[in-house]
């Protein structure tokens, strides 16, 4: 039996959480919703924010880098820059914008010492929404997630149980409930998902895919 020529097959892209085979579920009374984020482009940028010309070139390309610790700067089309350190940001965008972003940012930063690295597949993203979302996260995250300490538009690198996590507080949902985006390294995807799902049990868990 001849094998089909592999080159004729369209390669299938699989986000980390695809391996879990998640199906949507919305039991009555569920207060927490988990959603696997598949199509996110993630570029890691390291740059000396003191290089005015580079910052200006980025601004011209539509990107403002937050310079206060834990800041998130929004750009057009749902793109945003997450502060990870004094010289490090994670740039998030829809996946289909990746090629354009790489090229636009590469041009803008040409000639300046920087590192723009595609980490799209390095990470897995999970969104957790609901009134008790912070209570679920607090079971494994030592940060103060109170409204006053960690409002929408903040990001921090922390722990979720025993996994490193980038935690971003997103704008509140339509019904006013808090929404967080959890980003973990790819191999921790199952651990993080199971951990959040287990922690949300007492509040009722819905799954969106």
């Amino acid at each position, binding site marked *: 039996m001849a*094998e*089909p020529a*592999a*080159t004729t*097959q*369209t*390669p*299938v*892209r*699989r*986000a*980390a959480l695809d*391996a879990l085979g998640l199906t949507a579920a919305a039991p009555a009374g569920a207060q927490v919703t988990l959603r696997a984020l598949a199509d996110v482009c993630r570029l*890691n940028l*390291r740059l000396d924010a003191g290089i005015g010309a580079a910052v200006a070139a980025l601004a011209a390309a539509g990107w403002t880098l937050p310079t206060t610790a834990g800041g998130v700067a929004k750009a057009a089309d749902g793109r945003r820059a997450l502060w990870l350190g004094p*010289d490090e940001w994670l740039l998030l965008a829809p996946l289909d914008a990746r090629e354009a972003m790489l090229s636009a940012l590469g041009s803008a930063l040409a000639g300046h*010492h*920087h*590192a723009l*690295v*595609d*980490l*799209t*597949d*390095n*990470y897995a993203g999970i969104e957790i929404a609901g009134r008790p979302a912070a*209570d679920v996260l*607090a*079971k*494994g*995250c*030592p*940060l*103060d997630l*109170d409204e*006053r*300490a960690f409002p929408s538009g903040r990001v921090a690198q922390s722990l979720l*149980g*025993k*996994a490193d996590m980038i935690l971003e507080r997103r704008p509140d949902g339509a019904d006013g409930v808090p929404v967080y985006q959890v980003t973990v*390294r*790819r*191999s*921790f995807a*199952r*651990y993080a998902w*199971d*951990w959040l799902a*287990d*922690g949300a*049990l*007492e509040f009722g868990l819905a799954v969106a895919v």
Partner: protein
Amino acid sequence: MSGQPFRLDGGGRIDRSRTVRFTFDGAACEGHPGDTLSSALLAGGRHLIARSFKYHRPRGILAGGVEDPNALVQVVTRADLSEPNKRAGQVEIYNGLKVRSQNRWPSLDFDIGAWTDRLSALFPAGFYYKTFKWPAAAWMTYERIIRRSAGQGRAPTGPDPDRYEHRHAHCDVLVAGGGPAGIAAALAAGRAGARVILAGEQGELGGSLLDEPADGRRIEGQPAADWLAAALAELAALDNVRVLARTTVSAYYDHNFLVLLERVTDHLAPADRTAALPRQRLWKLRARRVVLATGAVERPLVFPDNDRPGILLAGSMRRYLNRYAVAPGRRVALFTSNDTAYRTALDLIAAGVTVGAVVDTRPAPDGPLARQVRDAGVAVMGGSTVVRTSGRRRIDGIEVMRLAADGRSVEPGLSTQIGCDALAVSGGWNPLIGLHAQARGRPVYDPDTGAFLPGEPVAAERSAGGCRGTLSLGGALAEGFVAGADAARDAGCAGAVPPKPPIVAEEAEAPPRVLWRLPGRHGRPGRAFVDYQSDVTDKDLKLALREGYRSVEHVKRYTTAGMGVDQGKIGNVNVLGVVADALGVPVPEIGVTTFRQPYTPVTFGAIAGRGPGRFLDPVRTTPMHAWHAANGAEFENVGQWKRAWFYRRDGESMARAVNREVAAARAGAGILDASTLGKIDVRGPDAATFLDRVYTNMFSTLKVGRARYGFMLGEDGMVMDDGVTARLADDHFHMTTTTGGAASVLTWLESWLQTEWPELKVYLTSVTEQWAVMSLCGPMSRQILAPLTEGIDFDGDAFPFMSFRDGTVAGVPARVFRISFTGELSYEVNVPAAYGLAVWQALMAAGRPHGLTPYGTEAMHVLRAEKGFIIVGQETDGTVTPIDLGMDWIVSKKKDFIGRRSLFRSDTVRTDRKQLVGLLTDEPGHVLEEGAQLIDEATVPRPPVAMRGHVTSSYHSPNLGRSIALALVEDGRARMGGRIYAALADRTVPATIVSPVFYDPEGKRQDG
């Protein structure tokens, strides 16, 4: 009401409309919702509920809460599942609750162990230390027998099915304690806008407010219960206040980090517990400020026979009476040194219980409370003491005599006999200063009350109410308000002011009298228990002093006073008082014993949280994991990673599978999932300079498009990590590290960049998980890969060994490295991780006609060992230099690098260090044990034996048809062809020292 003969007809905070049924030692008991196990047992008339630890004396409920030294029980869930040492005052009853008494056999009422009590003179403090010391060898036998009779309760034998969890929390003000001071503090801080957590130990908040009768003390003109209800409603309405009931602040650590234990479902019947809720929750809390409002516990008096069932602390008796509507007996006597007992007496009278007499050690008790009691027609016997009690399983009478003026003996004369079935005792109050002391506060002794009060705080905490020695209700509320407002202000809530203190209508209390050991009749001191739980009498303490112990810490350990489950909450101050008294020194000179965490016992389950089971440690998997699992892979744990170890086919053994995989990789083609290797993107104009400094060999000379194997050393010159690094551009490198070193190498490199060489313009980015990596090896690998690939010329000269090319593999952008860890022609395909599985499947499909065989880490180990390639962490152990490994060629002599200097120390330049060699056993089928020690002698000589080295790797090599091993051997390179012996437990295995490269020493195969 037949099951609750001592339940009063009215009053109390119990729900009389429902009856709760439970069993105690198998006997049917009942109570009402709102009851604790203690109150329900007392309502049933049961006072004897435990046997003491050492003498198995009958013991009853002494106190009202967790401080009770006697009321420890075992709560049974299943035959193999029960929890020992539960404090009966903390167990809320539910239908079906099963409780067993502890420390008795065969039954509580008839306990054989009680013989020790009859012979108690033979069992003084230190009995075990003294008696079972000789002969020394016999201790092993004694210990087994003593162990069997020791301990309180029994450990469960079955697995714990319950769910536990941890959670973090932050607040401006933590209020520890749900009594009046705590509630007042939470109100003041909450109104000021502070984020407040109020933790109360009991199911119902209110503390002593719950003990007030309906016509008792009034706050702002309303009954205490009404004020409480309004306060709790206000707290519940404040979004910034979280009230945690059934939550104990159990530990206070530095920087206001506190641990709280919340008992979430313990009070529910098992059928009412949901699987989603944890049974207990451990809070890890950061509080800007802490208000301690933990209250005070009552101190017993130390007098002869003071431990009989039916003897209760006066304040606790009042709690049972008012809060639970339980009469402690039909005819009650009271014995006190302060005014507390008079409140109890008044409430007893109001509840219709006969009060026999109040015995008071103070010569002339005539405060307002004492006068009220006297006016009610009850005999108040001032300047008197109880010299004896009677009744075995329950008290049935006391004998009273006049005290001498100094309180150390009794006046000559007749004694008075008073019949009673319960005795209330009060020796004053001990503020609960445990948390203050845990936070490094030093307690201060107050001679007027015989109590230790909190000293100057060290941490950001303050005390209010009973735990500060303030026993009046009005005082506690006022202090709570001030403490709460001050704490909120300190935590950043500007303008917080304490509410106006409420007006509380209460009688002032007359000063107490402090006496430690009350006398018995002349010449008959009797036995007076100081620490009930450890069965320590004043005599034991005095014996410890006679034997030379002076420090209270030593006295405590010698007598075991304060070392029970209760940690001496009730007994410790009396221990200090009795010891000081015996030594004739003031109490502060004795010092206090250390207050340790936790405040009350914490279950192991709560400490473990969600830890056991699937959340013990993350399980990390590669993008191709599902394929491995579906194709017979067994996995090996490599750190947190699951790596395919070998692929079992048709039920073959592991050895057969590994042999098959190894052979296929050399004869045809094999493929390995190498995604777990650490990968670091190194970029910047100084990247090459940086790599020259961190690797032993030169990278600045590496051409773009080429790759080089490198060693990193620690500053000690020892091999730390290895890997292949490729030059993507002049200023851009792709570094690989070992799987285990991925995180630590990145941290190490960042620390050098940030602290030592900040002038270097280099950025590091971990890209470990961005790439899925498959290592394709074997003579057929090129035929398999080339047709799938576009944009790469596979011609030998165009794509030489140790280079990489970018192209597409199976339509996916890929970077292909021509590097080899097997010695075969080999390609390492890197694709974005999301395509890892698709490309792997494409390679497998394309390789099937060529016999492409997936191989796991075990075959990989064999393949590299055949070539003598080392694995960091297997051939190295932090004591091995590159020269020891025979890899001098990788150490540049033209430049400096981390660890270089250490390679020239006298020890590292020795030529007889342990060096990497190969070993061939005489017996080709014998695979040496890894780690086996190597010696020079064929038979193991008498110790000490000179150890010449050890086996680092050992396998059966299917390609060589025999066993091979790598080893580190002293002066090994000079011993080629020499003999050495692996020392096993029962024999030695002879082997010949050879080159570590067993296969294809010329390295011809890597070019296919």
